[in-house]
Structure formats: structure tokens, C-alpha cells
């Protein structure tokens, strides 16, 4: 007589198989270091004073506001800044004072963002703001920062980050990086049309503004698209972009790395990678993105890199890679433009802080920030400056173009000026000349 295999018999088998699989996954994740694990003191990177002594004095508190919402996360920037500060604290801090980094995450709610700035300055008593990367913070809080005498060293997104004397960014932001990406497609790849696609978040008109001007100057039509993020249908988005660009056209993507990867992988699945020329603003200059794309994108995607190649040689790049490896366990994207920004902002701030003579106050810290000039790093094409008494700052206005090559980024074009057709870029070059910056 045949015995029926009942639920009571089948379920335990399933549960056991599931348990085996989950144990395997847990074991793998438990044993796989992401970027971290502190290694021996001999191999430890030298940050700041570089004396290997743990700072134990009164902490110097710096703060930041960062966007972290579905489809748009910039936490790699602040997490990397934190990694560098931790390294500095392990190497003598700021003349013995450890840096306490106070980061608040926000979700593009103006009321929340306004309260966050007040919390940092009025409640948490931060002495300076470093690594701020928020979609709306500059638009909401710049008058408050000005009133409180804060000079931010930040990563800019909104227009107000680039139109205030109180914000100087290490990046050039979505507008100017998109300018660079579009210029490359127009001037080097000679595309007949540009389709510009970006996340549907505040500031889309500002972001596409420079691309429109550059394309118009070259008599190339532009089509502007926006996508709700997280992207729920990458296939349709990629297909629409290619269709809109047409034969001989180009597509410029302005998304965070995970969203850009969704579109690019969808394009690859549909065989669209060679139908048009593809370009990205700086977030695509990220190792995990290029590793996810593979060789199909060799010479088909061109990324405007506001900073250097993630694996570039040079002392600052080597330190960045070393700090990420040993202190950057929270940097989920690993090597890439976002973590480069956080590192460089923190590095600039630390150099300024180390130069302060006397007490660390809001006045002394922000004066030190404002006085930064000629900061050399191999992560940027030109020395970085803050610039005193200038109406706005765009110190990073020259950058590279990189392209995937079998799963890693390589340089496609060396340091190139962002087009003067964008009036703010032309304006900042005049300021640089006049102020000898």
C-alpha cells in the first residue's frame, strides 16, 4: 500500500534545507569583511598628525546633514568622512582633541531639515559643518548658516550650495557634472541629440540647465526626462531613453549608483548598450557599479568623474583606499566618487583644524575653513580653495572622464575644464583670476 507523503513529513525536510542554506549565508556574511577590520598598528594608515596615539582630549564636534531615503542615499559620503576622522583620532586627533562627528539623516522634508540644522548648531553645539550632502539642506538652511557664521565644507546638490559665500564643495554637483558628461558626448562622441534623464527629486530644472545651454551652443537638441525612484521598471526606462535619443544620439544619466545600475543593466539585457552613446554624471564612477556591468560596457559608457579614478595611484588616493579598507566598514558602496568626496572633505577640514592656534570655537573653526587655499590632493585636478569674500564657490570646475574596461574604470579623458558656456562656471573662473585662487 502506498503511503502518502503528508505535510508533517515534507515540512521538516523543507525547514532543514532552509536552515542549512541560511546557516551557509550567515557563515559567509559572518566571515566576510566588507572593507573593515582593523589591522595591525604597523599597517595602519597615517591620518592627520599621524603619530599613532589615540586622542583623548576634549572632543571637537563637527556635524553634517545627509539625505538617506529610498532611491537616494548619500550616506557613503558622511560614513567615509567618519572613517577618516576615526583614523585621525587614532593618530593624535587635532592636537590631542578627538573629532566627534555628529551626522543627522534626513528624507527631503523641509521642516525636518530646518530642525536638523538648528539641532546641530543650537543643541549639539557643533563647531563646524563638514560633509553635508542633502538634496534640500542648502535651499532650506543656507540663510541660517550665514546668520550663525558657519562656512560649510560640503558636497553640493542644490543650486543654493553653489550660490552662497557660506558653502564650498569638493564636488561640482549634479549640474556641472552633467555639464561635463554632456560636453563629452557632444564634443568627443559627436552625438546628434542628448537625452538627459534624472531622479524626480527637487532641483531637476537646475540640474538640466547647464546641459541645455551647452547643447544649445553646439546646436544639439536636448530632451529632459525624470524618473520616480526607486526605479520600478528599468527595462521601460532604458528603452524609452534609447528611443528618444534616436540613431546617433546620446543618453546622460544623473542618478545615484544603484539606480543608474538598474537602468544600465536593463539596457544591457535588452541589447541597447551599443545603440546610443551613454554617459553618467559622477555617481557612476563607483567600483561596484562598474563591476556589476562587466565587459559589455567597454567603451560604451562615459562617466564624468568629479574626483579621480577610485583606484588611482598617488599618496592621497592611496591613503583614501587604505582608510576605507581599515575604517570604512559602513561605506556600503566601497571605492567610488561618494566616498572620495567624504574623504576629501574630511581631509580639508582636518588640515584647517590643525592650523588653528588657540581655542577651538565656532569662530576659529569656521575662519580656518574659510581661509583654506591651495589645498593639493591627487584626488582633484586642481588645488582646492574656499575663497574669502567671494559671492559663491565652485572650486572644483575641472575634471576627468572615465569609462569601464572589463569591470574597472579607466581614464577616457584627462583633466578638462567644465564648459564656460554655463555662466556660473565662467563667473567662477573670473573670480579665481581676480582673487588669485
Amino acid at each position, binding site marked *: 500500500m502506498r503511503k502518502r507523503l503528508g*505535510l508533517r513529513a515534507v*515540512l521538516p525536510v*523543507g*525547514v532543514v*534545507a*532552509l536552515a542549512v*542554506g*541560511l546557516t*551557509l*549565508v550567515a*557563515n*559567509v*556574511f559572518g566571515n*566576510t569583511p566588507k572593507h573593515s577590520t582593523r589591522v595591525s598598528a604597523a599597517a595602519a594608515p597615517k591620518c592627520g598628525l599621524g603619530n599613532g596615539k589615540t586622542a583623548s582630549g576634549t572632543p571637537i564636534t563637527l556635524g553634517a546633514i545627509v539625505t*538617506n531615503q*529610498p*532611491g537616494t*542615499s548619500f*550616506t557613503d559620503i558622511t560614513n567615509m568622512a567618519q572613517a577618516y576622522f576615526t583614523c585621525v583620532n587614532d593618530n593624535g586627533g587635532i592636537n590631542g582633541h578627538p573629532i566627534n562627528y555628529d551626522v543627522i539623516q534626513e528624507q527631503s522634508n523641509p521642516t525636518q531639515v530646518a530642525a536638523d540644522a538648528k539641532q546641530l548648531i543650537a543643541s549639539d553645539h557643533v563647531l563646524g559643518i563638514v560633509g553635508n550632502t542633502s538634496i534640500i539642506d542648502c535651499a532650506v538652511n543656507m540663510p541660517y548658516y550665514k546668520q550663525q557664521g558657519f562656512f560649510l565644507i560640503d558636497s553640493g546638490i542644490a543650486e543654493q550650495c553653489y550660490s552662497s559665500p557660506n558653502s564650498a564643495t569638493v564636488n561640482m554637483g549634479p549640474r556641472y557634472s552633467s555639464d561635463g558628461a554632456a560636453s563629452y558626448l557632444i564634443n568627443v562622441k559627436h552625438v546628434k541629440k542628448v537625452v538627459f534623464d534624472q531622479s*524626480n527629486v527637487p532641483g531637476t530644472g537646475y540640474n538640466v540647465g547647464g546641459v541645455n545651454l551647452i547643447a544649445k551652443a553646439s546646436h544639439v537638441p536636448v530632451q529632459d*526626462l*525624470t524618473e*520616480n525612484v*526607486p*526605479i*520600478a*521598471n*528599468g*527595462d*521601460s*526606462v532604458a*528603452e*524609452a531613453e534609447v*528611443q*528618444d535619443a534616436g540613431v546617433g544620439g546620446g543618453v546622460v544619466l544623473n542618478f545615484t*549608483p*544603484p539606480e543608474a*545600475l*538598474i537602468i544600465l*543593466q536593463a539596457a544591457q*539585457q*535588452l*541589447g*541597447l548598450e551599443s545603440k546610443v552613446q551613454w554617459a553618467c554624471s559622477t555617481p557612476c564612477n563607483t567600483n*561596484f*557599479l562598474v563591476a*556589476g556591468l562587466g565587459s559589455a560596457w567597454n567603451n560604451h559608457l562615459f562617466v564624468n568623474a568629479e574626483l579621480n579614478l577610485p583606484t588611482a595611484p598617488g599618496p592621497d588616493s592611496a591613503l583614501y583606499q587604505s582608510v576605507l579598507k581599515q575604517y570604512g566598514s559602513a561605506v*556600503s*558602496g*566601497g571605492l567610488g566618487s561618494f566616498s572620495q568626496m567624504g574623504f576629501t572633505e574630511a581631509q580639508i577640514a582636518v588640515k584647517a583644524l590643525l592650523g588653528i592656534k588657540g581655542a577651538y570655537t565656532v569662530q576659529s573653526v569656521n575662519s580656518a575653513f574659510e581661509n583654506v587655499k591651495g589645498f593639493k590632493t591627487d584626488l582633484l585636478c586642481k588645488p582646492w580653495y574656499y575663497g574669502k569674500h567671494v559671492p559663491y564657490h565652485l572650486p572644483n570646475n575641472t575634471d576627468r572622464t572615465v569609462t569601464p574596461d572589463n569591470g574597472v574604470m579607466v581614464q577616457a579623458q584627462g583633466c578638462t575644464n567644465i564648459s564656460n558656456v554655463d555662466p556660473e562656471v565662467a563667473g567662477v573662473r573670473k573670480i579665481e583670476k581676480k582673487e588669485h585662487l
Partner: protein
Amino acid sequence: MPTWSEIQPFIPIGLALGGVYALSGVGTVVLYRATGVLNLASGAVGAMGAYLAWALINEAHLPSGVAYAFCVLFGTVVTLAYGLIFGPVLAARDALVKAVATLGLALVLLGLMAWIFTDQAYSLPLPTDGAGFTVGQANIDWTQVIALALGIAVTISTTIFLRVTKVGTAMRALANDREITATLGVPVRRVEAVAWAASGLLSGVCGLLLADLVALDATTLTWLVISTVAAALIARLRSIPGTFAAAMVIGLVQSCITPVQSLTQYEDMTPFVLAVLALLLVSRTRVQGLAGGGGV
């Protein structure tokens, strides 16, 4: 307005999405009919299974086939376990309470995914992505074909299963009247368990397909359940072929409005709009029916 040749590439994309929505929608309807539970956790279960499959392939270096099977197994066991543990406890509660309880499972899994897998981008390409064929202006890959074919196959087989098998008949009886069905000696718990397991199995399959067709992203996959629920609601949580048809319409409309510049921003609203329209139409027909039949 886009031309016909411009719309063509979006049709296979929409059909493939519709096929996966249908798969998940059929699971939702079967489970609802058998247990009275509107499962809002199917997207999260599938997403978690897909993430685990990614980990088994990329971190544990197991063969892809084993990882895919594990994804389906994960969906089946987790959903069945939820049903066995919480099903009896919540059996007498209101349908809304039962639905919200599954939302709890979805949020727990979503939190786990965010905790374990962070916000880095992951991808789970299937081996069927690389090859395909062209029809008119449309490039079609085998994953899209499989998604549509599975949707059709599961719809037909489930319809037949519910009509000709003892368990299927018991499920239909449960949907009509649980008390009488139980009184007649139908093993209610066992029938419910079959429904939970089947629903979970389909969640796992959908997780794999959607991770490839859409993205391996916890938030996106978890809330794609909205499209599934919309398809099931349009079919009034009863009709399996109706769920399939609704899913296909949602997938097609969602995809084919992409090239329409003025509508593309609203494509995410497609499931809601179609569900609301269908519910309004159904209620209007019902009111007219009552009026025609001499109702008050």
C-alpha cells in the same frame, strides 16, 4: 504621441511584468479564497529569497541552480511557517487584521534586508537574459518569455486544480462557507497549509523573476505587491483568469505609457488607477443590477 513602432519594444516588457504579476496574483487569490488572508508580504518574501540566492551564488559560490531552488524553498517555507503559526491565531479575526498582520511580516523582512544587505546595488541576472529574438521593433529575451509562459501556465493549472482536485474543491468550499465546510469533515488546516505553501512557492519564483526583470532592491520588490494586489482586487479576489487578465493589463499599461511624455511620470499609479476604475465599474454594475431587479 509615440508611433506604433515606438510602442512595440514596450509590449514584451509589459507582458513579462504582467506574467509575473499574474503569478503572484494567482497565489494571492488562492490564499485569500482558502484562508481569508490578503497576503501583503509576498513581495518581501520573494525579495528576501532573491537576496539569499544572490548571497549563495556570489558569497558562498554555490551553483546558480541551487541558489534559485533555495529562493523558491525560502518563499515556500517562510510563508507556510507564517500560515501555520499565525493562521490559527488570527482565523477568527477581521480580514483587515489578517492583512495588516502580513504587513508586519513584510516590514520585518524589509528591515532584515536593509540590515544585512545595506543599500549597495545588487543584481541577480538569470542565464536566460543573454539570448533572445526580435519581433518587429521589439527585442525579446528568454527571461521575458519564461515570465509570460509561467504566468499563463500557473493560471491554467490553478484553474484546473481548483475545479478537478479534492483539495481544490475544498478550497472553493472554504471560500464559500468555512463553517459548513469544516462541519462536512474537510481538513481545513491541511487545505489552508497547501494554500500557504503554494502562495509562498509562487512568491519565491516571482522574487527571482522580478529581481532580474526589475531590480534586486528590497524596497522596490517589497512594494511591487501593490500591482499584484491591484490585479487580485480587479478580479474581486475570486477569479483566477480575471486576475491573470488584470495583471496583464496592468503590466502592459504600465510599460506602454512610458514613451508617452505627458504620462510617463504617472506610470507608478497604473495599478491604483486601474483598480479604482474596476471597483467603481463593479459597484456601478451592482447598483444598476439591484435597481433593475427591483431593489431599493
